[in-house]
């Protein structure tokens, strides 16, 4: 283990400083406020289908992003071109663009110099993994599926950012992540294993392949169930979708400012069992410890025992709300707003989780908090993971929730979810990768996929959450590598299924 930014920070810092100097010179007497971020990414993904590796990729990218404000006008530019003239071209065209833009009265200024806490140490073996490292885990997954057809990927990601602005703020941060997201297939049914971690060494392809195979076999020959409201146990993989959509549509300062969000700070909008934090310091998080405006990030409690306490802000949305930025600006995100990229639903038994007290706003826990929970329900407190179990439940903490259900559904995954109304966060989507009927605490039958139309905040409202799992799982985001959720399973009183395989 080595500090996170050693190998490439120096050239990135000098590149950022060079762009700032060029911006000052190009803007001339009008003066300029400028900020620069240099991103460097090493991303590799070994993909398999029909039980063999068919696509195996690696990309190495550098991106320099500049935003500047001169003479009351704002523009942004970026380049991936690394030749010596590129910084000058970037500055020239961005300054020229700003001069032609209409005034920007909402400009919120630059981040002032402030200390940035170091993030989790980057695991070098993960950051610099080779194709054989990934292929071995794929092999283990495929072999553990014991003859079932398999598909998915093993990936490794390293990314770093180096920031500088003309107000004097500088910062560097880096993160690494390894992930396996794969299925086994049995008679048309799919079983899933999905997990992300900060250390590739923690990914055991054989364990995950066996889990996926067990779920697939248990999902074969499903029955069709009538649509309607069902009690559900959502596995962490399904809960992650709730967190992601709430980050984009709910706890987004811009959406709140514009009254497009359901979120109301100070209100008991959720069941007391729900505590939600954004924590870039948690192991396995791919979030950096400052945002693209240079604002340091802290562990931010957004829901404390059911009460909404904070939303994500960038400098612009914070100024409009009369508060401080929480460090959640995203590149090119002026239109999208401020996004929490390291959301965690706290497991039961953890500080602030599952209805317990604790979890302070802006707590600044560099250690990341005890998000993996205790060793309840068969888990191992030392490993932070729940124990593997036989059958379709993902682990012992999920199985513990299943045992509490008189009649309901166990749901592995929510898929292709889309928002019907942003304000109420009514979402439609489908189940995927395994659904089972639960009767008297036992999993009795696999069920065909169902379509749902459900308000996510309503599903988590006071009285709606019957239990929170004891162990969280870090899950990769399929679309934004810089985002990762950490979620336990949830037992919810009601989920509205509006369609089945027949229509």
């Amino acid at each position, binding site marked *: 283990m080595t500090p996170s930014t050693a190998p490439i920070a120096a050239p990135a810092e000098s590149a950022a400083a060079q762009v700032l100097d060029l911006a000052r010179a190009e803007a001339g007497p009008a003066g300029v406020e400028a900020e620069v971020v240099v991103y460097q990414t090493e991303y590799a993904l*070994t*993909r398999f*289908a*029909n*039980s*063999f*590796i*068919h*696509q*195996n*990729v*690696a*990309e*190495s*990218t*550098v991106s320099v992003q500049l935003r500047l404000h001169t003479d009351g006008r*704002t*523009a942004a*530019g*970026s*380049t*991936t*071109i690394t*030749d010596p003239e590129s910084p000058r071209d970037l500055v020239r*065209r961005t300054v020229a*663009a700003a001069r*032609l*833009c209409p005034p*920007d*009265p909402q400009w919120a200024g630059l981040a002032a110099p402030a200390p940035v806490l170091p993030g989790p140490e980057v695991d070098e073996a993960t950051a610099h993994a080779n194709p054989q490292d*990934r*292929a071995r885990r794929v*092999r283990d997954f495929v072999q553990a599926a014991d003859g079932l057809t398999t*598909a*998915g990927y093993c*990936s490794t990601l390293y990314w770093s950012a180096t920031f500088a602005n003309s107000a004097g703020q500088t910062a560097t941060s880096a993160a690494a992540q390894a992930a396996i*997201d*794969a*299925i086994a297939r049995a008679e048309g049914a*799919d079983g899933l294993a999905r997990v992300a971690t900060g250390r590739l060494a923690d990914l055991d392809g054989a364990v995950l392949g066996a889990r996926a195979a067990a779920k697939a076999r248990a999902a074969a020959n499903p029955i069709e169930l009538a649509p309607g409201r069902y009690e559900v146990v959502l596995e962490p993989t399904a809960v992650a979708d709730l967190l992601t959509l709430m980050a984009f549509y709910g706890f987004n300062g811009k959406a709140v400012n514009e009254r*497009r969000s359901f979120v109301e700070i100070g209100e008991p909008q959720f069941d007391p069992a729900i505590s939600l934090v954004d924590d870039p310091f948690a192991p396995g998080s791919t979030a950096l410890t400052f945002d693209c405006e240079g604002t340091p990030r802290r562990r931010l409690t957004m829901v404390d025992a059911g009460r909404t306490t904070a939303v994500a802000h960038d400098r612009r949305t914070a100024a409009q709300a009369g508060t401080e930025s929480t460090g959640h600006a995203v590149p090119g995100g*002026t*239109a999208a707003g401020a996004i929490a990229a390291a959301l965690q639903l706290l497991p039961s038994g953890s500080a602030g989780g599952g209805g317990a007290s604790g979890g302070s706003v802006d707590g600044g826990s560099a250690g990341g908090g005890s998000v993996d929970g205790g060793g309840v329900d068969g888990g191992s407190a030392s490993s932070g993971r729940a124990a593997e179990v036989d059958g379709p439940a993902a682990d012992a903490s999920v199985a513990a929730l299943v045992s509490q259900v008189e009649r309901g559904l166990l749901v592995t995954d929510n898929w292709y979810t*889309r*928002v*019907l*109304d942003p*304000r*109420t966060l*009514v979402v*439609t989507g*489908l189940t995927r990768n395994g659904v089972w009927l639960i009767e008297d605490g036992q999993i009795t039958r696999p069920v065909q*996929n169902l*379509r749902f*139309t459900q*308000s996510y905040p309503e599903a988590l409202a006071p009285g709606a959450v019957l239990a929170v799992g004891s162990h969280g799982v870090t899950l990769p985001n*399929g*679309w934004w590598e810089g985002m990762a959720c950490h979620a336990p399973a949830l037992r919810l009183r009601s989920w509205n299924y509006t*369609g089945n395989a027949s*229509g």
Partner: protein
Amino acid sequence: MDARNGEIEALNQGEDAGLGVRALVGSSWGFCAVPDLSNASVRRAGESAAAIAAASATVPGPRAALVPSPPVVASWASPCDVDPLGVPLSSKGDLLVAVTAAMRAAGADHAEANYQIWDTRKWFVSSEGHRIDQHIRECGAGIAATAIGEGETQRRSYPSYRGQYGTRGWELVTELDLPAHAERIASEARALLTAPPCPSTTTTLVLGSEQMALQIHESVGHAIELDRILGWEAAFAGTSWLDLAQLGQLRYGSELMNITIDPTIPGALGSFGFDDEGTPAVARDAVRNGIWVGVLAGRDSAAVAGLDYAGSVRSDGWARLPMVRMTNVGLLPGEHTLDEMVAATDDGILMDINRSWSIDDRRLNFQFGCEIGWEIKNGRLGRMLKNPTYTGIGPTFWRSMDMVGSEVTAWGTPNCGKGQPGQVGHTGHPTPAARFTNVRVGVRS
């Protein structure tokens, strides 16, 4: 550029260059992408791509083959009357500021407008001898008005959910005439707040051309991707309900359903001269008179499937692996105007302008939401309806199509997601409006 409520909200200009190398060793593609175009860097990228492919032998599959693609040396450029990057930023800014101010004045709580421009130069070189350069310019724009009521929001967009896009110059944006529609959509967004909700029922559904584009995209375009059919996307994008054994025989839809795969349409967003395997653009049928007859294929997937054509492999840039993607997948026109379809409907609903979309991983069970609907009674449009949604199963839905419009718009969809790592594709969907029977509408939470 994004504008909001009469002000420019963001202007971003990105410049991007690099090299991606794809190498086939045995059963697997290896791919390596680098931003440094020096000789040493690109040589290392080539070596790395081969080494990555070779590492796949740890979990090998059947040796891959490629259908032939004769080497060509060629250049191609998309049509462009007005260079979109040559139009002054001030003019573009003035346009967006003016239309958002107009929407605000007409009652929008939030008024948004944006345009996007891509100017791409691409060089494709293969070890088989291809030497192809292409210059593709794409642009488009759109506006949206949001009205906020008690616990709800209503949105109206023009001309489409994210705007209209094509492989054309700024003339596309000029032709949209955004200012002429600003006041109308703001008024409609506000009117939707007090409109009755779409009833929950089963009825005759007329879909406007814009919504038809996404219906085709989701329930036909993705379903006919050969990599999905072969299981190569099983873990993420999903598979397909289509079985290759039924190609040429399966009834996908009614006799009126004629779907084409056509990357040659001038100005459509999914057009090109050559795909990213060097295969020249050729128009093909995907569904003819309701029978499934064609797929979107690449050279490797076609070889596995025993087909003799490819031509639909694309990447979203130098850093990502080329893969099977839609080009322009559209519905051929019928004989009726939209007015005639409405006039022929005793009891039904007209919906248009997509608001949400969702479909299962086999591309069967879909649910769409539209921005606006109108009831149809006795051949006439009646009340405006809010929150219109409809749901169905792909082949059942397409087999119920009993009228097809005569006026085609080549809609552009610049946000098609697929692949791991994720790629965002630009696809085109030329389509008229159409009518469907016995459709379930008004799905509630």
